[in-house]
């Protein structure tokens, strides 16, 4: 197990290094941030001074190594726009996004997994077909459009919920969170639901496919032959078997929900990282973009590692193979 762990960490480091190069090159290709940063009327002399000050006159590889050297000391640089360390900036926005993504994944699993299991358990029932139609809508309707519809319906027409923003937050362990107060709830529920729709559709289909397969297996037949109640057959035998694909997708989707909640955050004016990165791209705030993308890579690598370790917990056969 330890060998497996070390091997995975080693792989993760390589992935992060390769990604950091790609990210750096990609962002460099976007253009010269100096043009955006300073007054177009500034003299050539001021331009040259600034370019030298930020090191943009150096060769690309040198800039990269300077950047890596700083990163290893925990310094991702300063935002051109906000004039504060990038890491502080991102971490100040992270709780909002984290809370939103977690809320979305919870909604998606709590609704999606039971619906999917039902659709797999009774594939011919009308209710199952309705569930499958819902799942297709879930991941084919564009997020921004559903988001606008939600705002129109629940905020503009019905006045039940606020149309955007984060509303009041309460600090828990120094982290500002919305879900603690009812008022906070009213702000998070719409964007979280909007963000959940895609994963809801995905989890329904995944749970259904797994359940369909398990229901026709010999061990389910054998469990029935032992007189187990249907609730036990599904809750014990089927659920444990469909857990692996669901955990995989849950992990990966949690990562991408966290990293790419951009559209939902923009529509609902949610002050999260997604909104920050969009704003930074608009003004070519290079340090923020680079730091954000590298943090996303790190995030995915860590989530993948956790999912891999969870496999071992869920499936004893995988544990045995790793020990060997």
């Amino acid at each position, binding site marked *: 197990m330890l060998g497996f762990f070390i091997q995975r960490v080693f792989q993760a480091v390589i992935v992060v290094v390769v990604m950091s190069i790609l990210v750096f090159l990609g962002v460099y290709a976007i253009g010269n941030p100096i043009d955006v940063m300073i007054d177009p009327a500034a003299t050539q002399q001021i331009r040259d001074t600034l370019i030298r000050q930020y090191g943009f006159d150096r060769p690309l590889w040198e800039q990269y190594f300077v950047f890596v050297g700083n990163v290893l000391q925990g310094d991702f640089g300063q935002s051109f726009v906000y004039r504060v360390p990038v890491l502080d900036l991102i971490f100040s926005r992270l709780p909002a996004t984290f809370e939103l993504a977690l809320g979305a994944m919870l909604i998606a699993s709590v609704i999606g997994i039971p619906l999917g299991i039902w659709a797999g358990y009774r594939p011919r029932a009308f209710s199952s077909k309705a569930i499958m139609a819902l799942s297709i809508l879930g991941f084919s309707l564009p997020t921004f459009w559903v988001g606008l519809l939600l705002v129109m319906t629940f905020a503009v027409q019905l006045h039940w919920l606020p149309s955007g923003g984060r509303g009041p937050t309460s600090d828990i362990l120094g982290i500002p969170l919305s879900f603690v107060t009812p008022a906070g709830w009213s702000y998070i529920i719409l964007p979280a639901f909007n963000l959940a729709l895609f994963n809801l559709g995905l989890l329904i289909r995944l749970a259904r496919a797994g359940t369909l397969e398990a229901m*026709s*297996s*010999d*061990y389910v*037949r*054998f*469990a*029935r*032959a*032992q*007189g*187990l*109640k249907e609730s*036990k057959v599904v809750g*014990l*035998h089927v659920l*444990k*078997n469909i857990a692996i694909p669901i955990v995989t997708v849950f992990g990966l989707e949690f990562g991408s929900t966290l990293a790419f909640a951009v559209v939902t955050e923009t529509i609902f004016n949610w002050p999260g990282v997604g909104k920050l990165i969009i704003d930074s791209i608009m003004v070519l705030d290079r340090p923020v973009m680079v730091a954000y993308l590298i943090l996303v890579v790190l995030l995915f690598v860590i989530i993948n590692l956790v999912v891999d370790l969870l496999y071992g917990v*869920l*499936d*004893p*056969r995988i544990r*045995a193979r790793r020990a060997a």
Partner: protein
Amino acid sequence: MSDVVLSVQELQTHFFTRNGVLKAVDGVSFSVRKGRILGLVGESGSGKSVTGYSILRLVDAPGKIVGGRIVLNGTDLAALDGEAMRRMRGAVVSMIFQDPMMTLNPVLRIGTQMVAAIKAHDRVSTALARERARDALALVGIPAPAERLDAYPHHLSGGMRQRVAIAIALLHQPAVIIADEPTTALDVSIQSQILAEVRRLADQMGTAFVWVTHDLAVVSSLADDVAVMYAGRIVESGATEAVLAHPRHPYTAGLMASVPSQAERGARLAQIGGSTPSLGALPEGCAFRPRCPRATEICRMMPPLAPIGDTMVRCHHPIGEARP
């Protein structure tokens, strides 16, 4: 004959498919006495497995029991509602399956699966259920049964797994166990061990077995009685020695002749000409007629199952009678 535990009368299980109704089991009757083993023999597609599943009412759609009675200790299983039938499964009638690799849930510990099977019928504590599970494993000859409870199925060999499956089937000391080719997937030495174990359990505990198989060697060493099935009907039945020593039905005789041990070394094995008819296109009258060397015009009418000596035979021209 008061010790008859299971009596199947005129059982009919049909499959309602797009291409018409397939009469997989069409009027099968037999009975099994306490502690006796009935071998239900036939080729693939003869309806022997469907007969077994029908007794537990575990036939999957589009299959359906459309007629007949399944009387078990005085109760007609065919007339029970779903919940009442569930109470019978595992408690009064149990089943073991062909492939021991598939019948145990790969991601649940042996103990977990056995405890679930015990709790399906008895309200006992988990600790007590585990003790009973351990005793059941010991009963079927599994060494170190207490440790096996914490093992996963993949830790055990095929033979051990089938013993576990038998132990699970025996947990509530059912009156009858249906065994669907449970030794087919095992090698011959393991097979003979399991057969000896089953014989011992039948004698000691008085459990009756319906042993579904295509293997005449298994039947001759294990079964007290035998019923030979062809195309959804029983064509010959009686005490094993009587039927195997003097097969009356041409199909039984053909099966016997094709057993390799009966042939001379180097000689070509005997075989029955033609192949099993498709259930969708059965010939009128005796289904074996097109392959039968003794067939005549009268065979266009279905022969009744009639006594000849000690056995019951469904044939107009049974072997041992002069050909017309």
